[in-house]
């Protein structure tokens, strides 16, 4: 499958310069006396870097060989994380380096999206929010319900986050994964 400039849409996955990209912006431009072009911003699906590229009308880009699969986290062993496709039950092992800092949010049966590029798992997208119990924190301070004063807490999934001072060990918390882990609420 290949795409002409007139096929460009936001979210289209294209292969260029040896990497898969998704189109995050496109704009038809044409000088009055000149030929038509499409200006684009492309986001690298491996690194997240955004590049500007301008294509002449009629230029062709190949579809990127990428596929996103819904998967469930099963277990980790010696830095290898095993996931299962929730539709086909196929299992895949992913190196911890692919997950990087996100590994700390993985709890058993967490549903994630795994991006495959040319058949290889290259990226794992966590849900925006996870739920995890507080494994350890300093004792709660009674009567203080302010969210502004915080303390350290270690969650059962492994993440360490800042929580309000009233949070107790054993409580179930809702945590935002998008900014490295931030307290949202008690559940």
């Amino acid at each position, binding site marked *: 499958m290949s795409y002409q400039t*007139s096929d460009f849409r936001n979210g289209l996955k294209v292969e260029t310069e040896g990497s898969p990209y998704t189109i995050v912006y496109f*704009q*038809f*431009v*044409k*000088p*009055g*006396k*000149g*030929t*038509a*072009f499409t*200006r684009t911003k492309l986001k690298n699906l491996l690194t997240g870097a955004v590049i*500007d590229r*301008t294509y*002449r*009308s009629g230029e062709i880009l190949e579809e990127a060989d990428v596929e996103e699969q819904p998967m469930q986290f099963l277990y980790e062993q010696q830095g290898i994380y095993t996931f299962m496709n929730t539709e086909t039950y196929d299992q895949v092992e992913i190196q911890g380096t692919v997950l990087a800092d996100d590994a700390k949010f993985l709890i058993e049966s967490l549903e994630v999206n795994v991006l495959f590029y040319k058949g290889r798992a290259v990226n794992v997208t966590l849900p925006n929010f996870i739920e995890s119990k507080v494994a350890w924190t300093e004792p709660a301070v009674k009567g203080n319900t302010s969210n502004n004063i915080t303390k350290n807490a270690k969650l059962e999934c492994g993440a360490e986050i800042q929580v309000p001072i009233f949070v107790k060990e054993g409580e179930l918390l809702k945590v935002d994964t998008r900014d490295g882990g931030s307290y949202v609420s008690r559940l």
Partner: protein
Amino acid sequence: MHPRRAHVAGDALNPRLLRARGAVLASLRSTLAAEGFLEVQPPVLVQSPALEANIEALPCADGFLHTSPEFALKRVLAAGLPRVYATTPVFRNEESGRHHAREFTMLELYLHNANYLDLIPLVEGLIVSAASAISVATPVFSRTTVAALFGGDVPGDDDDFFRRWVTEIDPTLTAPTWVLDFPARHAALSELRGNVSERLELYVGGLELANGYSELRDGAELRRRFAESARARRAAGRSPHPTDEGVIAASDQFPRTAGIAIGIDRLVMALTGTPDIAEVRIGS
């Protein structure tokens, strides 16, 4: 082929922008009337749509919808009406986006006993009056040349020229700027002066708002340019547009003249700070 811009059911018309558009048009007409210009109505359905290597006309019935009223207006000039203008829908196929619509509105005017530089104060006056009519700040204009924009080294190759134009140059033309003296090979129907054409474009917000020139008055040279344009179109795999004998005959007859076409939709966008052309038009 570009697919038609998707029409979303319930696409709301914007009364504020439609009012501004009407006021801009009324202001342009009143300023032109005060300057002694006559409004004429060119045909929209024509046999020869343009002398353009890179514009696609929309075929219609046994001809085309015009891409500009230039050929008809030059016949009007030759008929002895030298100070005329038209406000008309024009059509360009394969152009669609936030800054392009397949159908858009053009005001094209002709000023006799004038060259392209004489268009600048006239058009600035039209735009300043239109801005005042809708109570927006008076624009301030500057001038530059194609050579200056390319740092003195204008690419000789068209692909290189236009690629650098859209990536490096037009995004920088945000304040109202007249760009003068295009390469001779982009002359269209303008007079040449050495290796440049006496042609100018007005840019605002990185968008071309107007294109004008000292009009070529040499039928034989114009016939040569029709042939050259047809060759370029064939080489690009496009069918050539028919030569327009009417404009060739007219070009030997009208007096020294400068003409300019202004994109009304983009003018309204620029004056109102609207980013998408669809918002200033009634969509089909």
